[in-house]
C-alpha cells in the first residue's frame, strides 16, 4: 500500500484490459477518465467554497450568513445553482452570439486547465511537465481572453469598460507575478511543479522568500480581481463589469470560474511557497500528502476571504501606480538580491534560510524607509500647495 | 512519424496567407495580424528544421526565441504607432494615411 494512486490506476488498467480493450486505448481512456474526474471535482469545489465564503464573510461582518437551506445553510449553494440552471440564458440583441456563448467556457476552461500540472500528492499529478510553472502562467492568462470576449461580445459599454479594466489590471500584474515566481524557480532549480514541491522537503519557500510570497499573493489577488483589486466589477462605477449581460448558467459559469480561480491560486500558493503536499509522515503513507495539501489550500483561501472582508477597494490610478511604481520595482530588487545572496550563501557555506531571511528583512527595512521618505515629501508638497489636490487621478488605461 | 515536408508545406501556406493579409487588408491592425502569421510560419519552419536536421544544437530554438522577442517589440511599437495615428487623424486605414504622397 505504498502508493495507492498507482495501485488504483493499475487496477483500472487491468480491469479494462481484462474486458478486452487495446492497451493504447486503455491508456488514453485512463487519461480521459482522470481529466474528467479532476475537472469535475475542481468544479464542484466551487460549490463548497461559495458556501464557505458567504459564511465566513458573514462572520466577519457580524452576520449569520446562509442558514435556511440545510444544516448551517450547507445546501444554499445547491439551491442557487438550481435557480441559475433553470433561468433562461439571455443573449442580448446586437451581441456577438458565438463569442458571447464561448466566453464563460473559456474562463472556466482556462482555470480548470491549471489543475493539469498541480501536484496533488506524492506521485499524483495530472501531467508532470518540466515547464509546469510556465504552463501555469500561460494558461492562467487564458482567463483574460475569456473576459475580453465577454466584454466585446456583450454590446454593452459597461461590459466593455469592465473588460478594459480587467485586461489592464491582469496584464500589469502579470509582471510582478512572473518576477515573484522566478524566485522559487531559482531556489528549486526547476520549473516543474513536482520538483518545486520536492525542493521544499526541508524548508518551505515562504521562509526562504517571504517577500516573493507576499508579492505573488498580492499580484494573484489582482489577477483574481478580488478585494482590494475588485474594480473590474465595481458596482458603483461600472455596474457589474464584463458579465453584466450574462444571466442563468452563463453568469453561473463566471461565478464558478471566479471561485475556482481563487481556489486554484490558493493551491498554487500552497504548492510554490508552502511545500505543497509536504508534511510529516508522507513517506510511509503518501495519501496523507493530499490531506496536507488540502489543509494548506484552505488556510490560504481563508486568508483571501479574510482580506475580502476587511479591505476597501482601491482606485484605478492607485492600482496602476501601486503596480508600476512599487510592487514591480520591489519584485525586481528581491529577484536580484535573492539570486546574488543565494548564490553567494550556498558557495560560502552560510545557512541558506538565515541569509535569505535576513536579506529579505533588509529589503523590507529599506523599502519602508524609502516609502516613508516619499510620503514625507508628498506631505511637504501638500503643505506647500495648500489645499490644492496633490494628484489628479490619471486617465485610466484607455 | 510526420514527414518534414508536411511541416514545410503548412508553414509555406500560412506564410502566404499572412502575406495576403499584409498585402490586401486595409486596416493597419489587420496588417499587423498578417505579419504575426508570417512570423509564426517562419517559427514553425525553424523548429521543424531544428527537430529534423539539427536537433543536436540549440540554434533553431534560440533563433525562435529571438524572433519572439522581436515580434513582441514590433507589436508594441506598431500598435503604439497605430494608436498615435488614430488619435491624430482618426483613421486606421492605411490608404488614408497618405500625407507624404506626392
Amino acid at each position, binding site marked *: 500500500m505504498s502508493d495507492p494512486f498507482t495501485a488504483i490506476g493499475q487496477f483500472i488498467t487491468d480491469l479494462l484490459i481484462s474486458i478486452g480493450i487495446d492497451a493504447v486505448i486503455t491508456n488514453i481512456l485512463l487519461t480521459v477518465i482522470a481529466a474528467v474526474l479532476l475537472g469535475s471535482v475542481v468544479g464542484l469545489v466551487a460549490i463548497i467554497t461559495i458556501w464557505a465564503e458567504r459564511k465566513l464573510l458573514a462572520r466577519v461582518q457580524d452576520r449569520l450568513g446562509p442558514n435556511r437551506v440545510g444544516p448551517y445553510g450547507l445546501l444554499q449553494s445547491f439551491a442557487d445553482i438550481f435557480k441559475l440552471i433553470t433561468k433562461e440564458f439571455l443573449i442580448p440583441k446586437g451581441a456577438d452570439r458565438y463569442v458571447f456563448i464561448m466566453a464563460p467556457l473559456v474562463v472556466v476552461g482556462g482555470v480548470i486547465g491549471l489543475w493539469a500540472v498541480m501536484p496533488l500528492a506524492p506521485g499524483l499529478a495530472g501531467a508532470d511537465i518540466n515547464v509546469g510553472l510556465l504552463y501555469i502562467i500561460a494558461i492562467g492568462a487564458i482567463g483574460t481572453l475569456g473576459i475580453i470576449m465577454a466584454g466585446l461580445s456583450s454590446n454593452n459599454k459597461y461590459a466593455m469598460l469592465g473588460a478594459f479594466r480587467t485586461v489592464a489590471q491582469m496584464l500589469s500584474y502579470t509582471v510582478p507575478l512572473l518576477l515573484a515566481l522566478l524566485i522559487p524557480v531559482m531556489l528549486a532549480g526547476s520549473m516543474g511543479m513536482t520538483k518545486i514541491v520536492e525542493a521544499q522537503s526541508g524548508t518551505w519557500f515562504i521562509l526562504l522568500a517571504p517577500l516573493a510570497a507576499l508579492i505573488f499573493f498580492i499580484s494573484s489577488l489582482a489577477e483574481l480581481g478580488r478585494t482590494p483589486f475588485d474594480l473590474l466589477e465595481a458596482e458603483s462605477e461600472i455596474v457589474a463589469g464584463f458579465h453584466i449581460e450574462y444571466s442563468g448558467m452563463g453568469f453561473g459559469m463566471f461565478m464558478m470560474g471566479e471561485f475556482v480561480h481563487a481556489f486554484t491560486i490558493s493551491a498554487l500558493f500552497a504548492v510554490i511557497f508552502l511545500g505543497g503536499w509536504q508534511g510529516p509522515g508522507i513517506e510511509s503513507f503518501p495519501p496523507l500528502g493530499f490531506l496536507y495539501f488540502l489543509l494548506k489550500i484552505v488556510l490560504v483561501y481563508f486568508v483571501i476571504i479574510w482580506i475580502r472582508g476587511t479591505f476597501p477597494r482601491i482606485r484605478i490610478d492607485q492600482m496602476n501606480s501601486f503596480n508600476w511604481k512599487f510592487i514591480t520595482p520591489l519584485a525586481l530588487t528581491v529577484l536580484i538580491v535573492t539570486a546574488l545572496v543565494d548564490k553567494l550563501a550556498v558557495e560560502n557555506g552560510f545557512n541558506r534560510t538565515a541569509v535569505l531571511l535576513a536579506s529579505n528583512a533588509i529589503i523590507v527595512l529599506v523599502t519602508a524607509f524609502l516609502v516613508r521618505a516619499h510620503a514625507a515629501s508628498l506631505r511637504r508638497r501638500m503643505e506647500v500647495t495648500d489645499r490644492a489636490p496633490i494628484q489628479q487621478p490619471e486617465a485610466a488605461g484607455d | 512519424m510526420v514527414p518534414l515536408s508536411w511541416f514545410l508545406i503548412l508553414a509555406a501556406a500560412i506564410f502566404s496567407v499572412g*502575406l495576403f493579409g499584409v*498585402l*490586401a487588408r486595409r486596416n493597419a491592425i489587420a*496588417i499587423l495580424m498578417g505579419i504575426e502569421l508570417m512570423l509564426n510560419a517562419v517559427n514553425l519552419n525553424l523548429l521543424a528544421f531544428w527537430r529534423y536536421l539539427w536537433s543536436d544544437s540549440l540554434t533553431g530554438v534560440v533563433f525562435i526565441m529571438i524572433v519572439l522577442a522581436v515580434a513582441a517589440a514590433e507589436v508594441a511599437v506598431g500598435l503604439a504607432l497605430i494608436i498615435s495615428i488614430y488619435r491624430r487623424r482618426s483613421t486606421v486605414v*492605411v490608404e488614408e494615411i*497618405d500625407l*507624404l*504622397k*506626392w
Partner: protein
Amino acid sequence: MIEIVAWLIPVPPLLAFGLIILFTNRSNRLSHVIGIGGMLIAWALAMSTFFYAVSGGELPVTTDVQWLPTGDTSLNIGTWIDPLTAVTLFFVAWTMLAIFVYSVGYHNFGKAGDSKDRPGLPPHAGGIEPMYARFFAFISLFAFGMLALVVTDNLLVLFVGWEIMGFCSYLLIGFWYGKDSAKAAMVKAFMTTRVGDVFMLLGLAYLYTLTGTLTYSEILFNPETLEMLATTPSVLGAGTSAAALIALLFFIGTVGKSAQWPLHTWLPDAMEGPTPVSAMIHAAAMVSAGIYLILRIFPLITAGWHHGDPLTEIMVIISFVGAFTALFASTLAVGQNDIKRVLAYSTISQLGYMVAAVGIGAFVAAAFHLITHAFFKALLFLGSGSVIHGVEHGAHESGDHINPNDMTHMGGLRKKMPLTFWTFLIGGLTLSGFPIITAGFWSKDEILAEAFGTSHLAIFVVLALAALITAFYTGRQITMTFLGKARSKAAEHAHESTWTMTVPLVVLAFFSVVIGWAGVPKGFPVLSSFVPNWVHEFVDSTLLEHSEVLEFNPVPLIVSVGVALGGLLVGFLMYRKLEAGAPDPLARLGRVYVWIQNKYYFDELYDFLFVRPAYWFAETFVYRGIDRRVIDGFLHWVASLAGRLGGWLRNKIDIPIVNGSGDFVGEGIKTAGREGRVIQTGRIQTYLIAGVIFVGALLSYIFFLL
C-alpha cells in the same frame, strides 16, 4: 603612513566645501559642524605631520603619482614634507582652525535672523548672517587651497592652490556683495593679484621649458639644475641668468599676492570682507602664501650665490622692494583711523620685512617671522573683529549709529571687553616687538641682526625705522581703542564677545608669546643657555646649503629694544588724552599727514596711470579708431564691392545662362514627375505587391530557368 597623511591633509576641507554647497546649505548648524569638522580633521593630520617632522622623522617625506603625461615629460602630482612645510602647516592649521571657530561667533550663530536681512548685506541688527552656510563653504575651499599649496611637491599644484585662494578671496572679500564698496574691492583684489599671477605663470612656463619639470626635488634641491639655471643666460640676455629671471617672475607673483609695493593697493580695500576673512587673507593664508613661495624658491633666487657674497641683482631688487614696502606701509598705517585698515597696512609692512629678509639671504629669519606674524596678525585681526562686533552691539543698544570700525569713536574698551583687551595687547606688543617676552621681538630682531650682521646697513636702517613707526602706530591703536575714556555712546555700551570668539583669541595669544622662545638666537645673554635656537636648526635644514649662524651682536638688539619701547611710549603719550571730536595729534604734521591719509595718492596715481588710459584707449582708439573706422570701413567696402559684383553676375550670367538651363532641367523633371507620379501611390501595400511579384519572378528564374 606619513605619506598618506600628507596626501589627506587638504582633503577634508574640500569634502566639507562640496558637502556644504551641495547638500547641507539649508542647515546652518550642520554646515558649520561640517566645515569646522573638516578643518579639525585637517588640523589633526597637519599636527601629526608636524610632530612627525620635529620628532626627528626622516625628511623630506615625498610621494608622487603621474598626473598628466606631456609627451617626453610628465607632470606629477605629489606631496613634499620638509621642515619649511612642517612649520608652515603648523601655523596654517592653528590659525585656520581658530578662524573657523571664531567665524561661528562672528556671524552671530544662534541669534534669530532678522527678516530685513538680505543675502549680500551684513546683518544690521546682530542677527545671524543670511549666507552663513555659504561662508563656511567658501572658507573651507580657501583652506583646501592653502593646504594643497603647502603640502604639494611641485610648482604647478602650488599655482593651482594659489589660484583657488585667489578665487576664494574674490568671493570672500565680496561676500557682502550688496555693498558697492565690497564689489569694487573684490574686483580690485582679483585684478591686482592677477597681474602678479600672470607673471608667475610666465615664470612657470619658462622654468618648464628649461627644465621639463616643476617638481621641487628636481629643481630646487637638485644642485645640477640650479647650476644650469644659474649659468644659462636668460632670454633678456645682458648678463641676467635664467634663474634670476624666473625668480624675478615668481617674485612678481609674490608682490601681487603678498601686497608688496607697487601692487599693495588691493589689500586695505579687502577689509570690506568679514573680519575672519581679513584674518584668513592677511595672516593665515593668502599673503603667507606669497612669502611661502619665495621661501620655497629660495634656492632658485640664490642660485649661484653663497653666504658672504655681495647680493645679486635679483636679491637687490627683492630686498629693496621689501624694505621700501616695510617703511612705506608703516607710515601709511599711522594715518588710518579704521582699526582694520591700520592692521592691513601693518601687514603689508611686516610682509615687507620678510621679503627684505629673503632678499638679503636670511632664509631662516624670514620663515621665523612668517610664523610669528601669522599668529599675532591673526590674533590682532580677530581681536579687532571682536572690538568691532562689540562696538556694533553697543551701537545697536544705544542707537548711536557710527562707523564701528572707526577708532576715533572708541576708547575705554579695556573695562568693557577685558579678554579682548588683554589678548589684543599681547598681539600689539608682539607686533611692535616688545622685548624678551613676545615672539615678534625675537623674529624681528633676527631679521635686523641678519641685516646688520651681513653689513647691509641701508636695509638695516630702513627696517629699524619701520620698526619704530610700527611700534608707534601700535601704541596709537591700542591707546585709541582701549585706553582713556569712551568717545561715543556705542563704545560705552560695548560688551565682550561670545566664547566662540574669545577662545580663538586666547589660543592665538598663547602662541604669539610662546613661539618666540623656539628661536632665541645663539649667544643671546642668559637666555640662550636655557633654550636652544631650535627654529634656526630645524628650518635651516630645509636647504641644501646651510647658512652660518651669526655671531651675537648687541647693536641690533639695542636698536630693536629701543625702537620698540620708544615707539610704543610715544604712541601712548600722544593719544592718551584724545578727546572725542578732537583732531588727530598728527594733523600737526600738516601736508604730510594729508598725504599719509590719502595713502600717498597711490590709488589716484594708478587710476591716472592705468585705469583711465585703459578706458581712453578702449574708447577713443580701439572703439572709435579701429573698430568704427578701420574694421567697419573695411567691411562696408567689402560689402559694397560684393554687392556690385553680385549685381553684375546676376544680370550678365545668372539670369540668361544659369537660370535658363536650370529652368529647362526643372521644367523637364516636373513634367516627368507629373506624368510618372501615378506610379507612386503612397501605399506600401502596392509597393509590396510589386516587390513580392519581383521576388517571385526572381525565384522562378533561379529555380526553373537556371
